[in-house]
């Protein structure tokens, strides 16, 4: 069993002191230990932005790709070696702006990876511009008079798009967040964990204190059942997505189990040569 220490690297963090992403990193490492993961069989895919640096701080196989494209990279990685535990990290810009197309299709494809979105409602690494999840009226360098666009509601989108696992955590609430990531990893399909991860530098509205006052914790709501898609939508609508906990989960068969002829043995462990009999059969289709 790997320890927390084994999932750490010697790299010093580039995040601002107090950044919510520290909490996300810690919870990911705790969840990896809790599920019994090993650094050599764990792969982390990240996009661009403050969130994209998370792979630098976790000892595992890391790939840091182009802006918005973490999900397709994770798909290729998982299909190449389905024995790997694949975690994907992105921010609200990476996931819901430049990467929105991939997000929707990852949900409907339902391949077995865990997507952790570090959502702070603002662009941090480019020094403070509006984001798809910024609230209306939110003032930034690109919206000096306040955002005039409506925010995206990623959780409702995910539930509507056919997601099989949707949860939201808060970087300050470590035990719940680590447990949600663990559940997501254990879910046999695509799991989305949107994490409220406050930006202490560029978002002076949606602060730790603000979230602590407004967030509703589903763990304290014994009546809520996370297996009903319309109840999930109702809850998200009613709370304006200011809610943490497991929002929706259904039994799922991952994409890689549904591909015709696709084997349980990972591609990377198969002989790349084609055998003569199979080759003859393939050529016969051209006769």
């Amino acid at each position, binding site marked *: 069993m790997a320890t927390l220490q084994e999932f750490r690297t*010697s*790299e010093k963090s580039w995040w601002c002191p107090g950044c919510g992403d520290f909490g996300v990193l810690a919870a990911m490492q705790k969840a990896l230990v809790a599920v019994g993961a090993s*650094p*050599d*069989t764990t*792969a982390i*895919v990240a996009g661009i932005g403050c969130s994209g640096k998370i*792979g*630098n701080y976790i*000892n*595992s*196989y*890391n*790939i*840091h*790709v*182009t802006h*918005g*494209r973490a*999900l*397709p*990279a*994770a*798909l*290729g*990685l*998982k*299909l*190449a*070696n389905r*024995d*790997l535990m694949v975690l994907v990290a992105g921010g609200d810009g990476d996931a819901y702006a430049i990467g929105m*197309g*991939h997000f*929707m*299709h990852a949900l409907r*494809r339902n391949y077995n990876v865990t997507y952790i979105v570090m959502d702070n409602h603002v662009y941090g690494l480019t020094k403070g511009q509006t984001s798809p999840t910024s609230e209306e009226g939110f003032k930034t360098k690109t919206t000096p008079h306040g955002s005039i666009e409506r925010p995206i509601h990623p959780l409702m989108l995910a539930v509507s798009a056919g997601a099989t696992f949707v949860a939201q955590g808060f970087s300050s609430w470590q035990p719940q967040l680590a447990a949600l990531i663990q559940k997501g990893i254990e879910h046999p399909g695509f799991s989305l964990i949107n994490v409220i991860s406050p930006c202490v530098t560029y978002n002076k509205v949606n602060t730790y204190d603000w979230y602590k006052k407004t967030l509703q914790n589903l763990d304290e709501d014994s009546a809520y059942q996370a297996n009903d898609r319309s109840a999930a939508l109702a809850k998200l609508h009613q709370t304006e997505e200011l809610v943490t906990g497991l929002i929706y989960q259904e039994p799922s068969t991952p994409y*890689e189990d549904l*591909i*015709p*002829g*696709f*084997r349980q*043995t990972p*591609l*990377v462990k*198969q002989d*790349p*040569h*084609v*055998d*003569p009999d*199979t*080759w003859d*059969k*393939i*050529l016969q*289709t*051209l*006769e």
Partner: protein
Amino acid sequence: MLAWKIGGDQGEGIDSTGDVLATVANRMGYYVYGYKHFSSRIKGGHTNYKVRIATTHVEATTRRTDILVALNQETIDRNVHELEGGLLLADQSFSPVLPEGAQAHLLTLPLTEIARNLGSVMMRNMVAVGASAALIQLPLDVFLDYVTKKFEKKGADVVNANREAVTTGYQRIIDEYGALLTFKLGTPTPGDRLVISGNDAIALGAIAGGCRLMCGYPITPATDIMEALVRWFPAVGGAVVQMEDELGSITAVIGAGFAGARAMTSSSGPGISLMQEAIGLASVAEIPAVIVDTQRGGPSTGMPTKQEQSDLLALLHGGHGDTLRVVLTPGSVEECFEDAVEAFNLAEQFQTPVIIATDLSLALWQQSVERSSLNGPNVSIRRGSTLSQEDLLALGENVFQRYQFSPDGISPRSLPGEKNGQYLATGVEHGPSGKVSEDPTNRERMMNKRLSKLDGVTAIRDGFRYEGPERPTLILVGIGSTVGILREAVKQMGGQVGLAWFRTLSPFPVERVRNVLATAQHVMVVEQNALGQIRQMMAAHGVSDERFTSFLKYDGVPFLPEEVVTRALALLSPVEVQ
């Protein structure tokens, strides 16, 4: 050698009619080459399919048509000029008219009516097949055997009706026009050949080369590669994913390459443009990836169903930053197979993206190919420099340097799943361990390391081929589908004319090009784009001089061998004509 053509509206089964003729002639031991004229629509609009049937290898179309089968008047109006005294078989149903001055013998048969009487107008194409067999003077029984097999699964009634359709078409021609049948194809050369396209050959090469994941987005003229792999991959445990776009396609391929699988994507110009950023990622993070560009008319949507070779500069230089890509350019269907296999070898050996550039004509037009040239189980697979689990365990924890400097620029890689091999692969500049680095010295060394890797490709691959005399008066230089056309032009011209073609555009085989072209009095670079892109590359490498001339075409229509001959003779005439 004979050229047969059928024309009608799109969606009327023109393709399947041509396919029957090509397949049967190929089985008899003839060499075939099929050329289709089509547009970006599904139903309606003129389409035609020309099949050349020959007793020797053929890899180009031609100006002349010997037999034209017309299912509507538009086919006659658009194509009759190619006949030069040949036969025109037209369906009586549209009351065909031979345009004034046309040099053709008009033959009519009630193709539609015969089919209707046999039960369905759908069988009109089979009547046309039978009639064509008679016109070309091929034996009826081989066509009947084909039809029997083709419709076997649909039951005896369907088989019999189609056999009847073929027989009736055949017999009516013999009975009514027997006196006009003077074509003699010559004796076929028996052999074991398949009628396949460049796209088929690339899909086959991918399987032979160990590719087991294809992520793509449909686009003309690349889609066949994806569809072929959908058909064949289940037998080898591979997967095709139809992605949401080309950004996703290439990035999924990179994810798989990082994991250690052989993966590919295929597209055409518009999709390749979208992939450029990610190709840069694969270059800088040193991740193998194979990308096929089946070029078509550009820019933007351009001419999706028309031939062009205008992506070449973009394939080399389309991304931002300083990168070198490996760009392979097969010049025949057989070379498509070879290069597809080799692309995966080079991608892993040099840990870099490899692009295979074909073009619409090479990608789509089917021709006879020896089965022996498609020997999948026998290809060599080179995985490049990797560290085994034992190597990594011997190394110890936190020691492995994924991007360590080396004389040839290649650093052994670990694969996810291996202990002690963890590292960060990133598009950000990094040091030998993979960790992000902005150190100026490291930056220069890393850039040089990546750029120097391609010298290794030049060392192991003949990037410029030549066939012809030792002291040529003229060398024709081509790429992609143009190579087959030039080969036929050389044959027609005879004399001291040679043919050279690029197998690798990047790294540019500058020494080979200089040596091959050194003794030529004239060099004509024949390429299908407006800017003379290959000639520009040659000039940039200092191998273009006053002996060089360009022959460019960018109207969407492939070069004809006859056009090349005319141009070449005009070039030579001041020197050679007595």
